[in-house]
C-alpha cells in the first residue's frame, strides 16, 4: 500500500480499500451481535433460573474437604482458600511432572542416539508406545490398574524410611516439635501415621503426565542434540572431554538452545494436560474450581472464568520463564 500524497484518499485507493473496510465492519457487527445475543440470553436465563451472579461467593464458607492440600484447609475455609489450594495443587503436579519428564526425556533422547542395539531399540519403542496411547488412558491405567497391584496397608513396601502401599506414598517428614527429628511414617491400626503422604491420585497423575510428555520431550531433545555439529564433540574429545562430561558440558548447552522453544511449548501442553486430574479426582483447579465449586455454588460462569484465567496465567508464566531462559542461553552465545 502506498500512502496517498495528500491527506484526502484518492478515488482509486478508496475503491481498492472499500471491500476491506466493509468486510471488517460486517465482521465486527456479526461478532458484536453474537456477543449481545449471548449476553441477553444469559441474563434472561439467569433471571428465569434465579441464579446469582458475581464473585461474592468467594468469601463464603466452602464446607467441603480437600484430600491433599499444601495450605491448611478445613471445611470452614472460604471458597477463595479452595481456589488457592487447588491452584497450588496444580502447580505442584506441573512442577513434579515437569522435572520428571525432563529427566526421563533426556535419558531417552541419549538412548535413541546410541548405536543400534538394545538401548537404541528400547528408547524408540518407548517413544512410539507412550506418545501414541491417549494420555487420559495412561492416567486411568496408572490409577485404576497399577495402584491396584500395590500391596495393602498391612504389608506395605518399606524402602528405607519410605512407605508404599495402595493408599499412596509416605515420605518421612521433619518434625520440629518438641525436638528436631525425622518423622518416619509407620502403620498404626488402620492408618499410616507420621511423615508426609502423597495420595495415589497425585502419583498416578504425575506418572501419566511425566511418561507421556517425556516421549515428546525426548524427540525434541534428540532433534536439539542432532543439531550440534559433529566437530564440537570431536573438539571436546580432543581436549580430553569424553562421555558424560562432554555430553553435559559441550553438547547439552548447545542442544538446549535449539530445543528450548519447542520444549517450552511442550511444558505448556503439560500444564494444560494436568487438568485431566478431574478424571481421577486429584484436587486441582479443574476438579475443585470447575467441578466442586461450580456445582456447589451453581455459579458455573464465574467458576469456569476463574479456571480459564488461572490456566492462562500459568501458561503465560511458563512462556515467560522459557523466554528468560532463552535470553540467558543466547547471551552466552554472544560472548
Amino acid at each position, binding site marked *: 500500500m502506498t500512502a496517498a500524497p495528500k491527506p484526502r484518499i484518492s478515488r482509486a485507493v478508496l475503491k481498492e480499500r472499500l471491500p*476491506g473496510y466493509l468486510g471488517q465492519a460486517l465482521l465486527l457487527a456479526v461478532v458484536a451481535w453474537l456477543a449481545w445475543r449471548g449476553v441477553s440470553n444469559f441474563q434472561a436465563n439467569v433471571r428465569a433460573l434465579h441464579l446469582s451472579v458475581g464473585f461474592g461467593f468467594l468469601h463464603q464458607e466452602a464446607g467441603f474437604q480437600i484430600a491433599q492440600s499444601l495450605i491448611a484447609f478445613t471445611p470452614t475455609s472460604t471458597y477463595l482458600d479452595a481456589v488457592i489450594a487447588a491452584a497450588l495443587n496444580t502447580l505442584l503436579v506441573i512442577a513434579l511432572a515437569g522435572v520428571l519428564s525432563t529427566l526421563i526425556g533426556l535419558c531417552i533422547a541419549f538412548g535413541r542416539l546410541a548405536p543400534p542395539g538394545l538401548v537404541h531399540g528400547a528408547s524408540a519403542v518407548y517413544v512410539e508406545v507412550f506418545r*501414541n496411547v491417549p494420555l487420559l488412558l495412561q492416567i486411568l491405567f496408572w490409577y485404576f490398574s497399577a495402584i491396584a497391584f500395590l500391596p495393602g496397608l498391612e504389608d506395605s513396601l518399606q524402602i528405607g524410611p519410605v512407605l508404599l502401599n495402595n493408599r499412596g506414598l509416605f515420605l518421612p517428614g521433619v518434625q520440629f516439635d518438641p525436638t528436631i527429628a525425622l518423622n518416619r511414617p509407620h502403620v498404626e491400626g488402620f492408618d499410616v501415621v507420621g511423615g508426609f503422604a502423597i495420595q495415589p491420585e497425585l502419583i498416578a497423575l504425575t506418572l501419566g503426565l511425566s511418561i507421556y510428555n517425556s516421549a515428546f520431550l525426548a524427540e525434541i531433545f534428540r532433534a536439539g542434540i542432532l543439531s550440534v555439529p559433529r566437530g564440537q564433540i570431536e573438539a571436546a574429545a580432543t581436549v580430553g572431554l569424553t562421555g558424560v562430561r562432554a555430553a553435559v558440558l559441550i553438547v547439552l548447552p548447545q542442544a538446549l538452545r535449539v530445543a528450548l522453544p519447542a520444549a517450552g511449548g511442550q511444558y505448556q501442553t503439560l500444564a494444560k494436560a494436568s487438568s485431566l486430574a478431574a*478424571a481421577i479426582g486429584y484436587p486441582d483447579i479443574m476438579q475443585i474450581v470447575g467441578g466442586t465449586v461450580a456445582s456447589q455454588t451453581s455459579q458455573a460462569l464465574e467458576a469456569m472464568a476463574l479456571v480459564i484465567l488461572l490456566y492462562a496465567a500459568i501458561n503465560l508464566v511458563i512462556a515467560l520463564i522459557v523466554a528468560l531462559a532463552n535470553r540467558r542461553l543466547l547471551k552466552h552465545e554472544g560472548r
Partner: protein
Amino acid sequence: MTTHFVRQAVIGARVAPATAPIDWRRALFPTPAMAVLSLLLLALFVALGWRFLQWGVVHAHWLGSSSEACPGDEGACWAFVVARWKPLLVGNYPSDQLWRAWTCFAAFALFWVWVVRRSHTASLQRVLLGFILLPVAFFLLLIGGGPLPVVAPTRWGGLLLTLVVTLATFATALPIGLCLALGRRSRLPIARWLCGGFVEGIRSVPLLAVLFVAATLLPLFLPSGSSMDLFSRAVVAFALFNAAMAAEVFRGGLQAVGRGQIEAATTVGLNDFAALRVIVLPQAITAVVPALVNIMIAVIKETTLLSIIGVSDLLGAVEIGAKSPDWIGQSNILTSGYVFLAATYLTVCYGLSRYSRRLEARR
C-alpha cells in the same frame, strides 16, 4: 613421437566394499557401562514380556458372558472385550438399524484405502472434499429422519462415536482454522486482532476446560427455549479448539509460500482473491498435509476426553461396560479393557504417524 595427455589403459573395477554383518557384540556392548545397561534392559524385557505373556495369553479367559468367566486376576479377561463387542463398536445403537453403522464403517474404510493408495500426483482437492462430505453423510445417515427412524446421538457410542467425532472435528476445524490463519495474516487490523486473539486465547486453555464450558455453560448463552444436545455441544468444543491448532499449522504453511509467488501472481494480473485461490492456497495446503495428519492423531487421542463429560466414546464404552451389573467389581476386568484400548489406539495412531512421516519424506 606422440604425447598422451589422456590415460589409455582402463583402470580395473574396484572391489565393492565388504558389507560387514552387524557386529552384535559391539552394537550391544560398546562400552562396559552400555553393556550393563543393555543387560539390565534385557532382563527387564524378559521379565515384563514373560509376565505379560502369562497374563495376556496363558492364563487369559477368552469366552464368557459375565465376571464369573474371569475368576482371580492371574490372567486377562478378554471375555469382557469379546462379549461386549457391540457396545464397543456402536454403543447403544438400535439393533434393527445397525446396517447404518456398518455402512459408515465400510464407507470410511473404502475411503481411507483410496486416500492412502491413490497415486500421489492425484489432486488433493478430492481428498479434502471427501473429508468434509463424509462426516455430513455419516451424520445424516446415522441420525435418520424421513423414511429412516430417528436415532438420537445419545444412543451412539463406542468406536462409531469416536469415528464420527473425529471426522466431524476434522471437517469443521480445518476450514475454520484456514479462515483464522488467513485472518491473522490479513492486512485488515480488526480481522487480524479478532483471529489472533481467538487463536491465542483458545491455545492457552486446556481442552477439558473448553469441553466443560460447552457442557455446562453453553446452554446458558442459548435462547431459553432452544436445546442443543451434549453431543453437538461437545463437537462444537472440539471444532473450535482444534480450529485454533489447525490455524497455527496453516499459518506455517502460508508463511512457507514465498513472497515472490504472490508478487508474480499480481504481475500476471490476478487479484488478491484469485492469487490466494490459484497460487497461494494449493502450495500452502500441500506443504502442511503431514502436519494435518498429526492434527488428526491428536484429535483421535483427544476424543477420549469425551468420557469425562459423559459422552460414551470408545473409552466411555469400556468404563460403562466395567460398571455394568455383569462385569462390575474387579479391577482386573477394567485393566483388560484398558490394555485392549491402549493396543487399539497405539495401532491406529502409530499407523497414522508412519503415514505422516511417509508423506513428509515423499515431498
